[in-house]
């Protein structure tokens, strides 16, 4: 950006808004809230993976001393769900349960202990059905469908899209590969367990404080299920103790305590146990993938046929979008001349999967980047060079009609290959040591909203009072990523004041205009652009008032270091607060609004709504590993990671997002998996669900690449999700370089490497991964013409 040098706040490192109260232990998370006369709620959950509810007897529980209310599904029968096409959840199950952990009844009592004891006195008579626990079982014929609205049997959703001409594409290839991959499910594991407090005032208005990433969507769900106008409900997101996508759906406990508050007239609080958090889930889908790719000798991709089979769990959640996402972003890194995507999602009797960091894209990215590594070897090409030679170009369209505006992937690859010494190390390290590379792309905010409408995705209001106080109001939700700090930084930048002096009011449906929420990496770009619009409108008023007094052209005025300064002719200046008072005298009360709606892009075909974004971030990673050739136990020694962030609003914050993404990716590849046995979650506790500690973390060398995207505020792109994506394939490729074992699965566990080493010793292929894909007849694809500027 030309005027980057003149930026005073943007691009500078600053402490995050809210951090001070967090280091003092003063930040009030939902579980820290306490209201007079508050009741405590606990939820009874199903012990069956799949069963009809014959009857529920709440009589004995109701009689227990200290119990104030007991409710069941009959009290909250209206279905809801995050996507309009998947309204398949109920706050408390009415007719049947679909997983162990499904909520069936709730108790509100004077204390948590009483509520807990009362749960044991509720008698539920279940008629069990056979359970469906895998994609294979989900594809088989079944007596009892999990949901009747499924596309076919237990297949929730089919997708079939074809771009260009596959036959022609494969006929142009010099080399064709078919590979099968599996990516196991894993979960967000936010440190804070979901918690919420509800109250219903004497006027009948309901207020909910909740640890949520999407107060607006919770607001809509409450209005629907409680049958109250939205104007009678207030949702306030409390500081969120970690989200990662796990708090983006409206949840049963939020609806239940609102109902309890309405029934009892007393505030009601609920804090889920860690076990219950595992049942809420909405995390990474287990995905089986089959990829057939054609490549020319020079490494260009002539055709790709990608199939994905998602294990969705018991409910729709974001699953329809997740299914499309497993086929959407393969196209925006390297040109793919012809592309076909077939995907399906099955319902299973497990906690529902949804949008964990990277939403539906880490699985196909793993498949694509590992397959590229295999191609490089087959064709005798260096894997970094193969990627560098064939990158998407700026201002072009991918084969599936996604628009790439800026792309810093070349710089990313160059930085990390140099920093890691990739060229000199690849295939040249001593046995047991290895190095691998992978790249990725992610969207900066979904181009379309979750429910169809033409309204802005983000709204901002501002006021400046005559004391000089600047307040920005926005529905955006700080989940630790620092969105409040972004708002403050932009306002401070534009008004020439210190970010500490900006008052940020967010995530309160009574006070703040709608922002859709903290998901899809949308907040910096969308609230950022809305904020710029709002603050510049105010700035114009200030300048008009000052210009009148100074007798100068408003264009000659600037705001800097708390002063309004005239730069042309005679230098004149006035303190910010005085300028505000002049403006208030001239215009009346000072306020402004700003909105942001993403540009309308993407194709016209059904399914074209998933994938378009104002811009794409790019990441590249080199992983270096050391692996024991006897046991398969390995360590990641170093990650070199570069991320095209467009422009950093606050570099320390961006680094934090990149490091955190790398950490979470390492967890996914090295150890994390969510597995089940006979309908039961095997590991619903932090003791058993392994996640990386300080001792597991490698050295990380991180580079931020700035490409100044025209659609981003000051050029910014996302940073919170994209950098996770290349970690898993980079590590898998490094393991192959180290010991010659191909693990076509995530997680890459030592026991799998051990098996591969055993196979290698006995002269067999060292590959570990799924051997076949289930036979499924996909529907006829929707055929889509190649866009005009697509790669050939």
């Amino acid at each position, binding site marked *: 950006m030309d005027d980057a040098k003149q930026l005073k706040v943007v691009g500078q490192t600053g402490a995050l808004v809210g951090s001070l109260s967090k280091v*003092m*232990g003063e930040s009030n998370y939902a579980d820290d809230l306490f209201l007079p006369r508050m009741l405590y709620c606990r939820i009874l959950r199903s012990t069956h993976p799949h069963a009809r509810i014959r009857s529920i007897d709440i009589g004995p529980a109701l009689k227990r001393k200290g119990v104030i209310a007991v409710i069941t599904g009959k009290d909250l029968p209206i279905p809801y769900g995050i996507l309009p096409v998947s309204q398949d959840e109920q706050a408390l199950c009415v007719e049947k349960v679909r997983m162990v952990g499904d909520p069936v009844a709730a108790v509100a009592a004077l204390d948590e202990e009483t509520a807990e004891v009362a749960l044991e006195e509720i008698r539920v008579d279940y008629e069990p059905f056979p359970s469906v626990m895998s994609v294979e079982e989900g594809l088989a014929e079944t007596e009892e469908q999990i949901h009747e609205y499924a596309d076919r049997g237990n297949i929730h959703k089919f997708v079939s899209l074809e771009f260009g001409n596959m036959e022609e594409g494969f006929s142009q290839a010099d080399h064709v590969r078919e590979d099968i991959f599996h990516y196991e499910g894993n979960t967000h594991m936010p440190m804070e367990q979901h918690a919420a407090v509800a109250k219903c005032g004497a006027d009948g208005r309901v207020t909910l404080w909740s640890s949520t990433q999407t107060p607006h969507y919770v607001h809509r769900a409450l209005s629907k299920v409680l049958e109250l106008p939205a104007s009678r409900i207030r949702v306030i997101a409390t500081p969120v103790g970690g989200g990662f996508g796990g708090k983006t759906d409206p949840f049963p406990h939020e609806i239940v305590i609102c109902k309890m508050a309405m029934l009892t007239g007393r505030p009601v609080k609920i804090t889920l146990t860690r076990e219950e958090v595992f049942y809420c889930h909405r995390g990474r889908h287990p995905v089986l993938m089959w990829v057939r790719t054609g490549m020319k000798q020079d490494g260009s991709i002539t055709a790709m046929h990608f199939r994905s089979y998602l294990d969705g769990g018991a409910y729709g959640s974001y699953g329809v979008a997740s299914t499309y996402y497993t086929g959407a972003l393969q196209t925006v890194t390297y040109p793919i001349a012809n592309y076909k995507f077939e995907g399906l999602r099955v319902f299973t009797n497990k906690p529902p999967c949804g949008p964990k960091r990277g939403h539906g894209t880490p699985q196909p990215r793993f498949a694509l980047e590992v397959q590229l590594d295999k191609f490089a070897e087959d064709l005798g090409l260096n894997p970094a060079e193969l990627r560098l030679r064939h990158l998407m170009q700026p201002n072009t369209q991918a084969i599936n009609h996604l628009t790439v505006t800026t792309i810093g992937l070349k710089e990313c690859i160059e930085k990390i290959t140099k920093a890691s010494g990739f060229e000199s190390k690849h295939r040249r390290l001593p046995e047991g040591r290895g190095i691998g590379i992978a790249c990725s792309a992610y969207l900066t905010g979904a181009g379309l909203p979750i429910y169809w409408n033409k309204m802005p995705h983000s709204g901002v209001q501002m006021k400046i009072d005559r004391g000089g106080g600047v307040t920005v109001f926005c529905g955006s939700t700080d989940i630790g990523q620092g969105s409040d700090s972004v708002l403050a930084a932009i306002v401070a930048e534009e008004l020439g004041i210190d970010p500490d002096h900006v008052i940020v009011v967010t995530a309160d449906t009574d006070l703040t205009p709608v922002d859709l929420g903290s998901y899809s990496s949308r907040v910096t770009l969308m609230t950022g652009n809305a904020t710029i619009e709002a603050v510049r409108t105010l700035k114009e008023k200030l300048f008009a008032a000052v210009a009148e007094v100074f007798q100068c052209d408003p264009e000659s005025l600037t705001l800097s270091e708390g002063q309004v300064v005239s730069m042309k002719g005679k230098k004149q200046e006035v303190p910010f607060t005085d300028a505000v008072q002049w403006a208030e005298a001239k215009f009346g009360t000072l306020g402004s609004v700003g909105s942001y709606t993403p540009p309308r892009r993407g194709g016209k075909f059904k399914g074209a709504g998933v994938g378009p974004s104002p811009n794409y971030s790019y990441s590249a990673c080199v992983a270096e590993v050391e692996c024991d050739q006897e046991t398969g136990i390995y360590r990641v020694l170093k990650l070199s990671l570069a991320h095209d962030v467009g422009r950093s609003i606050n570099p320390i914050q961006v680094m934090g997002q990149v490091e955190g993404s790398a950490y979470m990716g390492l967890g996914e590849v090295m150890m994390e998996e969510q597995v089940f046995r006979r309908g039961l979650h095997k590991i619903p506790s*932090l003791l058993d669900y392994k996640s990386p500690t300080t001792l597991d973390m490698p050295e990380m060398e991180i580079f931020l690449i700035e490409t100044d995207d025209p659609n981003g505020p000051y050029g910014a792109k996302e940073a919170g999700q994209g950098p996770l994506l290349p970690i898993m394939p980079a590590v898998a490729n490094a393991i192959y370089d180290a010991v010659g074992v191909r693990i076509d699965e995530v997680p890459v566990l030592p026991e799998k490497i051990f098996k591969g080493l055993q196979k290698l010793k006995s002269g067999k292929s060292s590959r570990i991964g799924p051997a076949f894909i289930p036979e499924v007849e996909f529907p006829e694809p929707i055929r889509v013409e190649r866009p005009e500027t697509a790669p050939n």
Partner: protein
Amino acid sequence: MIVDPYVLNVNGVDRRVVDGHIDESLLWVLRERLGLPGSKNACEEGECGSCTVRLDDEIVCSCLVLAAAAVDRRIATIESLSVDGDLSDVQQAFLEAGAVQCGFCTPGLLVAIDRLLEDDPDPEELTVREAISGNLCRCTGYAKIIEAVGKASSVSQTSIKSNHG
């Protein structure tokens, strides 16, 4: 079973616990009975370190300690780390290094690190990593936390040097 009122010494003040149950954890009593919600509950089984407090000179997961077992001991929580509103070196370093994201693990980490630096004002990085390996953080990847400990230890090193010379 409700027990007779008892006294806990928390952050230098004797606090009476009334109507407590015999089986309540120290974390529960701190948060729900004594109005000190800074210590966080995240796993209920001593695995994550979010509830870390100090018992005399020992660092414990307060979710695993019975409140009754903390009678006659000095309990220190996150709320005691800054004195008269002045941040401790570690708190300051966390802010400067950007070691705080969602902040839920932060109180437990700060209590643990504060104790570490008391014994070893300039620890090796591996010592730091080991000392806080029982504190899980899902946001930061630990990098900025380790960096913050480095900053805090160099600050206290400097102040020690200047005190001596």
